[in-house]
């Protein structure tokens, strides 16, 4: 791979530019197409009439949401893959998003009169609850990565059964819940952005500071202990951080899948295994994936909106299979 010859920092710089450009162009895509020149005019303080209203109230908060959620899911996936030491780990797979999904479905279906703020709080609570269960069931004189993964899958299956029970017992409210369960940034406004932003903006810098711990953990428990790292404590701390990022993201946009799984893989191909580079690169790739998925969802069949979660699966899964094939060959 001559991709690796380019320095990781150069890749991160390139991805950042690509992200900015992608975010800028995405503003124009949708039921009403807006010319990039008009968008530029808007940002330089010019008066663009109707387009300005669309940009300021609909498109911009949605794009900012993609930036936040892409960061949260991308980094969360990279951390989980480091902690579980398996390239298949991700917030979706180990049950965290399913826990959020179950409590969100319960709120949407059983308490439709609850104020809007109740939904993200419940979803976040659900993600947290699954994580507590994950830790308790997997704990035997410390937590082994393999047990963590398997117990997560089992808890995910229990939550899935609960979701199925709710959607079938209350068929009338099901469609609203289904849209949420697929994951979408549709209709997100500045209020949602302000709800999510503090979590992502505070936790992300902390993860960068913890990058060396992840490097040490990925060497295996014995080596890490030999290097003086308190393995169990580090694992618990990193797990909590991963859940904070994924749980808060999912709480706002729904159970958007595959970003947390794919983004770290693509990032690893570009910048290698050092977490100091891998974490920011995963965040950027996560954002790009989400922007692309949402652009397709908005732009492909306007004015119909396809939930971004469907496109992250359609783009993500085949690419993932391709990656695994390549890993097997090398």
């Amino acid at each position, binding site marked *: 791979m001559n991709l690796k010859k380019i320095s990781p920092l150069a890749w991160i710089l390139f991805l950042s530019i690509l992200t900015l450009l992608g975010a800028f162009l995405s503003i124009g895509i949708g039921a009403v197409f807006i010319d990039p020149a008009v968008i530029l005019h808007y940002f330089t303080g010019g008066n663009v009439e109707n387009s300005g209203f669309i940009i300021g109230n609909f498109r911009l908060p949605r794009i900012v949401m993609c930036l936040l959620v892409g960061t949260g899911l991308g980094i969360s996936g990279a951390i989980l893959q480091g902690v579980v030491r398996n390239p298949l780990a991700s917030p979706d797979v180990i049950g965290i998003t399913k826990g959020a999904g179950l409590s969100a479905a319960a709120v949407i279906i059983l308490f439709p009169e609850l104020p809007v703020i109740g939904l993200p709080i419940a979803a976040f609570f659900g993600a947290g609850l699954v994580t507590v269960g994950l830790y308790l069931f997997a704990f035997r004189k410390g937590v082994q990565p393999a047990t963590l993964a*398997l117990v997560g899958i089992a808890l995910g299956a229990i939550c899935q059964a609960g979701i199925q029970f709710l959607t079938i017992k209350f068929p009338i409210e099901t469609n609203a819940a289904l849209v949420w369960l697929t994951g979408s940034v549709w209709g997100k406004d500045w209020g949602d952005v302000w709800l999510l932003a503090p979590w992502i903006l505070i936790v992300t810098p902390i993860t960068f500071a913890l990058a060396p711990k992840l490097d040490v953990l990925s060497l295996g428990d014995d080596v890490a202990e030999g290097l003086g790292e308190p393995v169990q404590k580090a694992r618990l701390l990193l797990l909590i951080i991963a859940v904070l990022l994924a749980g808060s993201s999912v709480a706002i946009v729904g159970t958007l899948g595959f970003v947390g799984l794919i983004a770290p893989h693509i990032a690893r191909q570009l910048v290698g295994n050092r977490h100091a580079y891998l974490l920011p690169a995963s965040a950027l790739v996560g954002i790009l994936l989400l922007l692309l998925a949402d652009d397709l969802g908005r732009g492909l069949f306007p004015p119909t909106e396809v939930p971004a979660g469907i496109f992250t699966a359609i783009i993500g899964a085949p690419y993932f299979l391709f990656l695994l094939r390549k890993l097997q060959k090398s």
Partner: protein
Amino acid sequence: MNQLSNQPPFYKYKLFIGLLGGAFLLVVSIVASLSIGAYAIPFTEVLSLLFNPDHSKEASIIHTIRLPRALVGVVVGACLAMAGGIMQAITNNPLASPQIFGVNAGASLMVVIGVVLLPGLGSDILIYFAFLGAAAGGGIVYYLASTGGGMTPVKLALAGITVHLFLSSLIQGIVLFHETSTEDVLFWLAGGIDGRNWSDFSLLLPWALAGFLGALLLGKSLTILGLGDEVAQGLGQSIGWIRGSSALVVILLAGISVAVAGPIGFIGLIIPNIVRKIIGSDYRVILPVAGLFGAVLLTISDVLSRFIAFPGESPVGIVTALIGAPFFLYLASKGGRKG
């Protein structure tokens, strides 16, 4: 080989006890299934009406609604448990089952595609869709899980769940865009046998019997395979041939189950594990006994499912998931400690 042929009395004794116990439970649960429901019919009346039908309302409920449903449940339960048993034998992995292996999700996706995008297809054609999907889903997971060395329980579970999530989001996408059929498809996707009639049963039976026969023929080879690939080869078994024909039988058993009853989870996971724990590793015994107890579990779950939203019907897949997921949790925390 010696090990096997030296113990014929013991093996036959276990098989006999297992089949007798299973048959007794099965009869009890079938009678319960015929008796319990929105319209309750007493046990004694069930037995007399079953063999001497008159023209009463009760007799027609039993013969046209409850009996075909119960029999579909019996056959599907047996199919799923045997499919799970074979999978666990060829992968030497306790977590292997139609659901974890992506076989159920693959078959479901193809059936949903058939139902939603090509309306008017008969259910006899949909069976082939299910077989195709079962083969594709299982093939992908098998391929992914065996990358880079052996197939550990963790790798299999992670690969399976990833493929499962991918296929389910495709299904969800299709469902979201065809709102008219959402409710029906969702109900079907949870896995259920209510409303199945005699024509469903006659569609199911020939394929299932072929699958049962295949499973019984494979029993001996699978037991030898359990001694390790090298030993099996030394004893003159062709590993490739066993794996290939096992895959075919699994696709047959799991595919036909999904086609008729939807993706019912966890039966293929739980039953073979319990049976193996109790009666050892001889697949000539495990497969028939697992089939019988799979039938029992699905029939009992179906009876329980009638109470979820009584007097309305709920998919039996919810009950099997609620029973099965904690069992999976138990297996998971055990398997992880080993790995």
